[in-house]
Structures are given as C-alpha cells and as structure tokens.
C-alpha cells in the first residue's frame, strides 16, 4: 500500500501509454483556484457523434480551439474527422453532413483522434456547450482504451450563460441553447453543426460570458467553477 503511494509520487505508472503519461504529467499544480482568468488555458471543444447516448454512440469528429487571455489562436486549432465503420442513423447525417464510412484520407480512427485530443488539452480547462456530454464521449473511448477518464476542470457555457442572465423563474425551453445564445450575444453562426465551427462559436461565446462575469467580480478559476452544474 505505502509502496503504491511512493510509486505514484516518484513517477507515473509505467503501464500507461506515452500520451497518457504526458497528460498526467501536465497536471503540475500550476493551475489552481486562484489562477486569474487571463492566465487560464481554456480548450473549447465540440464533438459530433452518431447519437446522444455516450454508451453506444460514436464520435464522428472533434473540433477544438484554445482560448487564453481573451484570444483564440487559429494556428493552434484541432479539427479532425473520425473514420467510423458504424452504421449511421439518418438523422445525424442530416445534422452534420458527415457520412461515416466514406474514406477520406484525412480521417483518422477514433482512438487516434482521442489521443490527439488528450495531447492537445493536457491540463487546460475544458469548455463546451453542455460540456458533460462531450467529455463523456471522450471518456467512453479512453475507458475502452486504457480504463481512464479525463481529469480536467470543466466549464459549461450553458451554465455560465444561466449565471450571467440572472433570470429567476420560468424560462422558455431552449433559452440556453447555442443558437439562442448566439443570437442574444450577436455571434455569427457560420459553420454551425460542424465540430470545429461549433467549438469556435462556443469559444467566442465563452469570452463574451467571461467578460460579463468578470465585471461582476469573478476573476479567478475558483470563481468560475462555482457556477451551477447543468
């Protein structure tokens, strides 16, 4: 028992593949509750999937951008399509326009895509619109691969939007949907329903929400994480 603890302290468990060891190493304690918003590395991402059930549906594409200090660097974006041999459900094709099984030389398999993603995120704060779903999709793959799950802090832009609006009482369903919020915050909705397009739109939304929260005195990661889960 004590030896396990020592082993953990001395270094990563050698059984993990390289990408995961590097991932674990990235949690070096530099990111904490007192980290100011300006210094937080955010990874805003979105996945397109074959359906809404994390247990049986599969990832079709992952799109992500990095946000730091009120800036998105397009030079550091993640935009990959996943090769799936999965029989698609008609509806999702309509939404995403991705035809699974079509061989595109740029496409990579699901495991490779998730490895990319994990390497891309490292210890960043993960952000998404209804981020829990996208995280669970990634975790599903990681679980099957190495029996692990993502350890990052998460922020849900839908939850942040609720916090910003401060509305009490009944609200129309869909008030915090991405489309509605884009209209509310005047964000151009091009490339909606591609993983990368949605990730980019969500990143812009994130910055606009953060600016409003900051005006109300939310200045650190700790303050952000206090938002109600959604």
């Amino acid at each position, binding site marked *: 028992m004590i030896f396990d603890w020592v082993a953990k302290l001395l270094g990563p468990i050698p059984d993990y593949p390289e990408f995961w060891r590097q991932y674990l190493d990235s949690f070096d304690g530099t990111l904490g509750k007192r980290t100011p918003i300006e210094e937080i590395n955010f990874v805003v991402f979105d996945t397109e999937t074959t359906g809404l059930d994390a247990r049986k549906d599969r990832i079709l594409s992952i799109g992500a951008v990095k946000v730091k200090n009120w800036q998105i660097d*397009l030079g550091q974006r993640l935009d990959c399509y996943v090769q799936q041999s999965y029989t698609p459900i008609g509806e999702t094709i309509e939404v995403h326009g991705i035809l699974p099984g079509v061989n595109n030389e740029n496409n990579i398999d699901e495991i490779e895509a998730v490895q990319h993603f994990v390497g891309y995120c490292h210890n960043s704060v993960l952000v998404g619109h209804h981020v829990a779903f996208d995280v669970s999709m990634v975790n599903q793959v990681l679980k099957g691969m190495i029996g692990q799950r993502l350890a990052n802090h998460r922020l849900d832009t839908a939850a942040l939007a609720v916090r910003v609006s401060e509305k009490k009482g009944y609200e129309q369903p869909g008030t915090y949907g991405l489309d509605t919020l884009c209209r509310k915050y005047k964000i151009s909705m091009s490339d909606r329903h591609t993983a990368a397009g949605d990730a980019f739109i969500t990143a*812009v939304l994130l910055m606009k929400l953060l*600016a409003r929260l900051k005006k109300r005195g939310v200045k650190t990661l700790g303050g952000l994480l206090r938002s109600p889960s959604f």
Partner: protein
Amino acid sequence: MENTIPRRVYDFLKEFPPFNLLDRDLLMRISERILVQYRQSGEIIFRQGDPPNTHIYIVREGAVHLLWEKDGEPVLVEECDEGDVFGIRPLLAEENYALTAKVVEESLIYAINVEGFKEVLEKNPKVAFYLASTFASGIGENYRRQGKPMLFLDQDKMADVSFPLVEVQSLEKSKDPVTCLPDTFIREAAVIMSQREVGSVIIVDEASHPLGIVTDKDLRSKVATGQVGLEKPVAEIMSSPVITVGPHITVADVQIEMVKNRINHLCITEDGTSASPVIGVLSEHDLMVVQGNNPALLIREIRRCRNGKELRHIRERAEDLMKKYIYQEVAIAFISTVMSEVNDELITQSIKLSQAEMDEEGRQRPSAGFCWLALGSEGRQEQLLRTDQDNALIFEDVPEVDYEPTKNYYLQLAEKVTRLLNEVGYDFCPGDMMASNPSWCLSLEEWKAQFSTWIFEPSPKAVMYCTIFFDYRPIYGMEELATALTGHIFENIGGQAIFLGFLAKDALQNPPPLTFFRNFVVENGGEHKDEFDIKARAMMPLADAARVLILDAKVGKINNTFRRFEKLAELEPIHKELYEQAADAYEILMRYRALQGLKNKNSGRYFKPSELSKMERVNLRNCFQPIKELQSLLTLRYQLAYLR
C-alpha cells in the same frame, strides 16, 4: 487537419482591401494563423508612439477608434468598423504608430501576425500600390475609390502639422505702416488706403506716436453715409485711442486683445504703449494669413507686395502651407493647383511691378500687347517647390519699323521680371530658357515659324526644346496669342508623323530607374554621386510620354502630366488602366519629390535611396512599373524600332 474555421475567416477577409488583392493560397495561409481577439470597450490596442508589434488588425465585429493624441487631447481621426484594417502601415514601413487604437464597443478583432509573410505582402505589387495610393491621394478621393484610407504617417510628420503659435511672422511685412497726420483730409486718407491696398490707416502725431485709427469700416459707416464730409480731417472719424501692443507678441496674445477689445486692428509700437512710435499694424486678416490656412489670402497678399523680398516671404509662407498639405496627405491635384495659383500670381505681380518700374523710368509701353508663358514644370502646373525658371514671351505682330523697339521693350521687361523672380527664389535657368533671351522673346509670327522648324526639321536639339516649350502655359497678358500658337502647332503636327516619332523616341531616352537587380540606379559621379535622380529617371519619362500622346491626340490646354494621363484614359479606353496607373504614379512621385525637397531643403530632385524607409522604396519601385509599360506602348505605336 481540416480547415473549417480558417475558411470562414478567409471568406471574410477576401471581401476587404488589401486582402482582396492577395492570391488565394497566401490569404488562406494568413487565415490559418489568425488570432481572434475579444476586446472590451475602453481597451487600447496600441498607443501612438509605440513601436509596431507584429500584427495587422481587422475589425470582425464592433468598433475601434483611431485617435491622434495631441497635448493629451485625443482627436478622432478615423472610426473603424467591420472589415476596416488598421495598424498596417507602421508595420510595413517600420515606423512607430502614429495613432492610438481604442476599442469603443465590445469587439472581435482579427489580428494577423505578419511574421513570415511581411516580405510577401511588401513584394506584392498590388498591395504596395494600394498602400501607396492610399498614402498619396486625399481622403475624400479614397473613400470613393477604395474604401477607407489609412491615415498612418510618421509621427514626427504628424506633429509638424500643428503650427505653433509663434511670433507674428507678418510683423516684418507691416513694418512700414500706413500712417497720416490728424489734419489729413478724409479724401486723401481714402486715396492712400486704396493705393496701398490696406484696410486701415494709423493717425499719428509729428513724433509718429499713434493717436487713433481709421479703418474701412469707419469710411463706410461715417463717410459713405454722408454723416461726415470728405473734406473733413481724419481726426473727426478716427477711433481713439488705438490699442497698442509691443513688437514681441504671439498670435494668441493678438487674438485675445482683439476679442477683448472687440476690434480688428492692433497697432504695434516700439515699446507697446501709445507713447512711442508706430512700427506696424496687425489686422485680423494678417492673423489669418499667419495661421496659414488660406491660399486665397496668400494670393491677395501677393498683390500687395512691392518688391522681391516681400514676394519671397509670401512664397516661403506658401511652402509652409504646402508642407502642411503634404503631411496631411491632401490630394496632389489640389496641392499643385494651389501652388500653381501662387506661382502664377507671383509671376504676374513680378511682371506688374517691372512694368510699373519701366513706366517710372519713362519707357513708353509699346502698342503691341504680349503674353508671358511659363514653360517646363510651372507650365505643367507641377511646380511644388521652387526650381529653375523656364519662361518665354510672345508679343503681337508689328509692322517692321516697330519691331526693334517693341522687342527691345519686352526684352528689357523680361530682364527685370526674371531678375525679380530670381530674388523670389526661382534660380535663373542654366540653359537660358528665359524670356530675357532674345531667342525666346519673339513675335507670334516668329514663334509660329520656330515651332514649324522644330516640327518639320526635327533634330535632337529641336526635340529637346520641344519637351520644354510644348508645355507652355499663358500666365499673364493676351491669352489669345498663346491660343493662336497652339492652333498653329496642331495644324502642323497633323501631317508630321515623323515628328511625333522623334518626340516619342526622346521619351525613351531617359535611362531606366532600376538596375537589373531592382536596385535604384544612382548617379555615378559628380555633385550627386550615389543619389537617385527622381526627376530624370522617373518623372520625365512619364511627363514625356504624356506629352507625345496628348499632342498626338491634339488636346490642348491640359498641361498637367497626371491630368493628361487622365484625359488619355478617357480617350483610349483600351489603355485606361495603364494611363490611370501612370497618373497615380506621377502623383506619388510628385509627393515624394516634395517630401524629399522639404526634408532636404532643396528642389527634392536628388536623394539617397538609403534614406528612404523600406516601404517608401517599395512604393517608389511600384511607380516605375507603368514607365516600362508606357515605353513599350510608345515603341509599338511610333514604330521606334525603325527609327533607332
């Protein structure tokens, strides 16, 4: 890696200059590396005086103000919204930011890091030309032509624009104040005022101490109304006491005194009190002139000048005015019009003064009238800075007996005028192309014969004269003499294709401005060793080409090179683009020459390429492009290969 997001950025950028001028691949590469910045109202993106960072900015949504901070007071220079680019010129020209960029509403800004493709942008001739033309043309023109201009200048140049409230410059001019004694009749005083072209006369005692002042207004309100008779002494209508100030006073002081006392004239005395002699008068009009923002006033001042020194003084003030225009990026077409007006008026006044002098010497004016012609750059209305004078004189045809005395009179007049112009600062022409040269002071008949000789017996020397004389423009006197000569020339050229061929060939004589390796060709030796001759290498080829083509098209009265090209663009739609480029290029070259001249306090003709900023060098190089194309057009049109 897919490119969903950059493609969207690309679609946005390609709608706006200068990005719409880039090729697809380059713009896509730029789009892939863009930084999308979220900026809140009140944020400063960069500050005036900061060295440029490595980014060009374009507003995706929101609004940014570009402010010029002067004495801590920000002045709004431009408002940027969706699609507007800012911060580009300082970056490419390696100059500090001339303005402060301040976000005024929640904005998304695309920041483009040019590290890596700065060179590509600079070398792209379309982009450089875009930047050059936004630099060269006036603001209004730009809004029409290609969206918003970029008002990014050197900082020190911007700083120069604000004229300090210095000591009153026109004091010197009014050192000889118009005065009279209190018992002078009002009629006499009025005559003195109109003769001296002044709006006021100071009433002084025997010791020249001021007693009062009579102004135009007093004459209007007290005399013209019949209230006071013309034969009364001025003392009856003068305003007294007169407000006096000392000789060392600033414009601001003068303004305060005038406003405080609700007066339009101040009297300058030796010690600033009314108990010392008058040394000058300052009117509100003088103030406006000192502030230097009104060319019309300058021109009126010229008409009051009595000698070369005074004229020179005005010409120097006109140059200050021009400097301000140049640095404020006012359109060259406007600047050259204003400066030509000033030059024309200076010449006219010189002629009038010289004639008056000859009248005084008792010389009888001949019955035959004359016309004074400006040649060369002044003829083309392109003289911004003072250069050598080039002029000629036509007088009306006279019976043979009268020829000698008439010619003598005009030669003597020309002698006086050219000497006066030399005093004003226009050097004598080293080639003696002046009206004081007996060869260039001729009767209309003689001039017609002279031009016929040049046209029908073209020789290299004749062609050289043609390049100077064909740009003549009547300045003073009987314009119909010039019109008659022009008619004669067009009649003759009609049947003389060979003459135009010679002229065209001459237009190709100027050596190319760039070496094989695209370096500037500099002078090999002499006084201007290692300097670039912008006139001979870049401007003359364009001016020469414009002259041949416009003569061929038989269009008279348009002398200005860029206006000639504009006219040609109208006449020959096939070459519209080339002619328009040539017109733009010529304007840019004129601006560079003026800038260099102002900087080096000379005519601006020679300068060291190494003293230009990189962007300026790129801009200049792009101006040379139409030269080459025009020269091949001339070669083809006049089949010059055979003539060589």
